[in-house]
Structure formats: C-alpha cells, structure tokens
C-alpha cells in the first residue's frame, strides 16, 4: 500500500433536501496519514457531507471511492464495517453508560473461550480486560479501573474510551463531528491531544468537523472550507492565517 496515496475520494457529491441544496458537486479527498479539518458556517454542508460518508443517507449524485474501490454505504453499520468510524458530537452516545470500560471497548466483539472441551463458549473476561488496558495505555489514557462503569467517568474520559474503542477496531478513517463541543476547557485540551496523537503516532486518517478554528489550526494538516454546499477553499494551517480562513467561511468580497 502506498503510504501517501489517496485513501478516500468523494467525487461530484450532490445532496438536496426538498428545495434545499445541501451539497453541490463536492469533491473531497483524504490521504493516508492525514488529518483534515472540515470547517464552515451553519448550514454550509459539513454535517451533510460526513453523514453521507457515515452512511446515514446516500448522496443524490456522485461517487465515493475507498482505497480506489467504489463503495456504497447502505447504513451507518455498513460504513462502519467498511472501516469508516464516525463519532458524533457526544462520543459517549456510542457507549453503554452502565457497563464497564472493557465491556464498552469490546461491545459487539466480545471474546470467548471454550468451556467443557469446546462444548460451550464463555466470555473471556481476563483476556478482554488485559487487552482493554493495553489499548488504553497505547493511546496514553490511564483510567483507574477498566471495571468501572462509563457513567462514573467524566466527559473527557468517556470520549477517550470511545476513541479507544474506535482504535481497537483499527478503522481506515476516523470521522469526528465536533468532538470537543460538549467539553469543558481543560478536557477539550486533553481530548485534542489525544486526537492528535491518534493521527500522528498511530497514523489513523482523521476527518474532523469543527466550529473552533483555534483547535483546527492546532491539529490538522489541511483545512477544507465549505460554504453554501460547496468547497470554497483549501489551505494548510501553516501557510494561512485564521483571518484568511474566516474570510473564506463567511465569503464576501
């Protein structure tokens, strides 16, 4: 596999809701090992674009290529199985609040071990706990016990568990929709570092949707600006200023 090739290509994506044109002929690409920030005002089409990518609804027109193959996502589940892991504003929504960290990380993919010479299969608790701990420490999350329920952890810690769950699945693309919108200042900072780490050290391609230019500038490689359903500009955070990006978001001139 090429390390710098195009991983995801969305071509000529159009989507309307009745009279409202949410997306018009959008071309979007994502490379391996790239963190892309998707910015734009309200109603610019950011969430429509990632919902198409997450399989929430299909585009009216346009094609999606993943690793060079054309793909159609029939449902969120389908997109997820093909390696696109989307977490919405509150990542904790993909967690079961009254279950412990291990149960959440392994949700739907619990490991079992044989009992009575393979006659029955029972949950391999120890093994799952060990692996949960190792996934958590790999991303640099230390929580005091993988046996405590999610509900007993803070918002930032819950997000971290959700990200660890994503990481164990080894997604091809991680899509984060306003990952820090629901967090306090300190936790926002921690989760941002975690995301950066996932992108840089684990090499997971990430698309991050955000209102907050501050955080976008801090972690992404490339900024894509949407306005009125179209991509109106792209830039690298090292070459552009926030003022220029704001200019693109609001348009005018």
């Amino acid at each position, binding site marked *: 596999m090429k390390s710098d090739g195009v991983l995801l290509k969305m071509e000529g994506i159009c989507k309307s809701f009745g009279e409202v044109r949410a997306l018009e002929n959008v071309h979007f690409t994502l490379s391996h090992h790239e963190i892309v920030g998707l910015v734009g005002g309200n109603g610019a089409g950011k969430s429509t674009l990632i919902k198409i990518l997450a399989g929430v609804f299909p585009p009216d027109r346009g094609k999606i290529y993943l690793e060079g193959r054309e793909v159609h996502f029939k449902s969120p589940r389908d997109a997820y199985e093909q390696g696109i892991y989307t977490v919405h504003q509150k990542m904790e929504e*993909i*967690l*079961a609040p009254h279950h412990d960290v291990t149960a959440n990380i392994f949700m739907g993919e619990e490991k079992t071990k044989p009992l009575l010479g393979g006659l029955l299969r029972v*949950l391999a608790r120890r093994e799952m706990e060990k692996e949960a701990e190792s996934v958590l420490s790999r991303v*640099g*999350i230390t929580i*005091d016990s993988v046996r405590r329920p999610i509900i007993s952890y803070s918002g930032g810690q819950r997000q971290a568990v959700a990200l660890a769950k994503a990481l164990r699945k080894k997604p091809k693309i991680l899509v984060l929709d306003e990952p820090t919108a629901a967090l306090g200042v300190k936790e926002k900072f*921690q989760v941002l*570092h975690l995301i950066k780490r996932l992108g840089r050290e684990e090499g997971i391609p990430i698309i991050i949707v955000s209102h907050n230019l501050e955080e976008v500038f801090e972690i992404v490689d490339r900024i894509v600006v949407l306005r009125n359903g179209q991509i109106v500009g792209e830039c690298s955070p090292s070459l552009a200023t926030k003022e220029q990006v704001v200019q693109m978001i609001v348009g005018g001139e």
Partner: protein
Amino acid sequence: MISVGRGLSPRPVAPMKRRELLKLLLDNSVWIIIAIFFILNALFTPKFFTVLNFRNILIHSSILGIVVIGESFCLLSGHLDLSVESTLALSAVLGAMSVKNALPVPLAVCIMLASGMLVGFANGALVRKLGLNAFVATLITYIGIRGTALGIVEGKTIWNLPTSLCFFGAGTIGVFPVQIVLLAVLYLLFHAVLVYTRFGRHVYLVGDNQTAARISGINVDRVVITVFMLSGLLSAFAGLVMAGRLNSASPLFGTGMVFEAMSAAIIGGISLRGGIGSLSMALGGVLLLSAISNVLNLHAVSPYWIQTIRALMILFAVALDSLKRRLMRYEE
C-alpha cells in the same frame, strides 16, 4: 507538554472505595431486607422458622419465580412483557386439551412449550419488525392470548390430568419437591447465561444503549426476539408447573400475575429502564414477596392488604434505584 496520560488520571481513590461498597450494598439490598425480615419473623412469628414453612415459601415462589426469569430478561433488554400470564394460561389449556385428545404426554409438553415460544416470537416480531412499542405489542398478546385460551376451552376448567404431566408441578425428587429443584436449576442456568455468555452480555448492552449496541454490530433484532421467545418459553413452562400443581388447566390461570412478576423484578432491583440488574436480585424479589404473603397468612391478616404492601415496596425499590444511579454518576 502536558501528557494526556496524566491529564486523564484517576481521581482520589478513597471516597470511590466507600461509594463502591455502598453500591454493593444497594445492589444487594433485597437480600439484606430478606435477611432482616427472616430474622424478625423467626423471633416474632410462630411457625415461621420451620422447614415445612420454608418449603411452603419456596413452593409458593416457584411458578412466579419461573415467570420472573423471563420477565427479567425482557426488562434487562429494555423491554417489558405483559403477555407472560396469558401465555401461561394458554400453555396449560393447550397441554390439557392435548392429553384429553389422547396425545402422548411428551408431545403435549412439546406443544405447550412451542406455544410459548410462538407467542414470544410474535411479541418480538411486533416490536422489532413492525416497530411497535413493547408495551403495546405485548398488550395485544396479553389480551389476545388470554382470549384464545378462554376460547379453546370455552372458559371451562379441565380437571384430572395424567400423573406424568403433573410431575413438574406435584412430583418429588427424593425429599425435594420438583418445583423447588426447578426453581434452583433454572435460576442457576439462566444466571450463567446472563453472566457468562455473549448472548447474556448483549441482552444487557441492548438494554443499556440500543443505538450503541446496533452500531457496534450487535444484532438487536435477534437479541430482542430471542429474549421474548425465552420469556414465552418460561411462561409456558410455568403453565406446565401450575397445571401439574393444581391437577387441572384453567384459561384463567395466572390472572394478574404479570404485575406480581414485574413487582418482584423491580423490588429485586432490576431497572425498568433496562441494562441494570441481575437474576439474583429478581430471585430475591420473588422470595421476599412470597415470604411477606406467607407471614400475612400466618398472622391471619386479610390477604387483601398484600397489594397495598407490595405497592409500598415498589415505591421503596424505585427510590433505592434512583439513589443507586446518583451514586454511580460522575461528579465534578
């Protein structure tokens, strides 16, 4: 640079330990209440603390206890099953009709159990495939299946069943009544299913957060339909036990039992919102309800008051539940 590792570090441990201990006590509050209740009555209720009376309490618990296992699976998965008592009656009536029509007893038993699974399947399909709310879906079967049971025998009770059919309800294994053995075996079996199998884990996860479970690849349809079928199967089995115990089959068997079953589960500590609870809690609820009605009997209190007492206990149990939730939640 501040490392994330340190950033998301644990909070002080000591108060957590105390909270966990308190939670453990609250989780098992029904057993603590049972212990206190038994000690008090051993002291103050004549004839309470005898082997014969304990045997009575356990036998009284058995049919309700079996139904409560199925109801607990439903509640844990975040659904409720109103149809259990009607399924019980239908099963008894079908079994009696089968043997009266000269079918062999094993076949009659199969018909009974199959009828329960079929009702359960209908419930599950109404909920998952037609998208009905579990309350509405099982209300339909609750009424409809009771009607079917009444219709099949035209409201009449069938008496004098073959002894072999009565084995589960009236037989003994050594000195132990079969009903008590059944209660123990079924609770152990289904407890193991819930705690040690993937299916059991999925029941809890679906109850805790159905969306998350679906996104994570759990086949929610299959889990929910299986849970309802299990509930139907156990209710039908309870019908077999009841027919055996009373050596008869009436289409009015188990009238009002669904409320008893739900109260037992809730008093035990199973949350109506799904995902929280265990079968040992449910069993505790069943035994406590049986012990209370037993004591009221021994004191010759009018049985009419038992509903009032049960209501107060549910109130108490629900209050404990919300206290438990508050204790578990993260606090700044």
